[in-house]
């Protein structure tokens, strides 16, 4: 009769019930019975090893960090939405203004507007890609707003320029 292999003896020591055949074998084979007792002994020893605990202030530390992270998230989401909408509306307003005031808008004003729109989109995409950084959100929204405002300013300057030329004539 062949002995029970070592891995199976370990499984038996880890509370897997032996088959009838294994029970019969263990009852008649001192070698396997001794090996099983050693496996069971090791399991008992391992159960008595004292385990370190997390430091006493750990829970408070982690909970504080969580509350802080929550605070950052709660102001970030509306800020992102508001900033994004405002920043995108500015270049769109410029386009509308351009269409309303002129029969044909100059190429440069369209380039400025489209470029600002592209920058806004890119900035917002970058910000969404780094959700753990509220600082990046602020910077992206500010850059987008600035570009939008510059676009409007450029368009207004272009609009006033021919009027000035006409006045000097």
């Amino acid at each position, binding site marked *: 009769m062949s002995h029970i292999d070592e*891995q199976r003896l370990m499984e038996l020591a880890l509370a897997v019930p032996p088959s009838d055949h294994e029970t019969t074998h263990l009852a008649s084979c001192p070698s396997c019975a001794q090996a099983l007792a050693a*496996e069971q002994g090791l399991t008992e020893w391992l159960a008595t*090893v004292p385990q370190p605990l997390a430091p006493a202030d750990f*829970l408070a530390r982690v909970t504080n960090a*969580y509350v802080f*992270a929550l605070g950052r998230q709660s102001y970030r989401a509306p800020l992102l939405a508001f900033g994004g909408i405002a920043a995108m509306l500015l270049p769109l307003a410029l386009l509308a203004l351009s269409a309303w005031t002129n029969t044909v808008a100059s190429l440069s004003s369209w380039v400025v507007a489209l470029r600002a729109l592209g920058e806004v989109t890119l900035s917002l995409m970058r910000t969404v890609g780094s*959700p753990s950084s509220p600082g990046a959100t602020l910077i992206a929204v500010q850059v987008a707003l600035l570009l939008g405002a510059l676009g409007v300013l450029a368009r207004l300057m272009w609009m006033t320029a021919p009027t000035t030329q006409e006045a000097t004539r």
Partner: protein
Amino acid sequence: MSETLGIAVDEQRLAERATRGDAQAFAELVSRYQNAVYRLCLRYGANEAQDLAQETFMRAFVHRERFDATRPILPWLLTIARRLCIDRIRKHKPVLSDDDRPLDPADERPDAESALATREQLGQLKQAHSKLADGPREAIALYHWEGLSYDEIATIMRVPIGTVMTWLHRGRAQLRKALEEAQVPVAKGTTP
């Protein structure tokens, strides 16, 4: 079985509340799993085990959408913790290894059984365990000390279940040998 299911449902509810910003639910989850997470960080010889354990919980919160609510939380947390520890080890070698770390009675479980156990023998077993290779060491710790299943250990360690069994077997054989060499009796009923 129904008790396990009850714990899973309770855990799922807590996780949902924590992701919605309920600090009390988050604290409850941390208090349940802080020791297991902290111990794993310690075993990886991380000098900053506490920082890494904290980062584990924060990462879990930030990446909460990746959590599969149908599965238990602890294996997921330990997967994050292990990845953080391995990354940290790659960046800086740990200053204090588990072999050097003294057994501090202040941070250990005041267990009646272990109080009776001779400190020296348990110290030998612990030291032998800390000297095992990563795989067998973690398989033993997660199975015997954190009460995880082969399947859960396989998920954390990213290996097939067969590898977990082999690691457990190999690690246990090495521990038995170390105890025998230290003349500690290792048969059933010989624990102090």
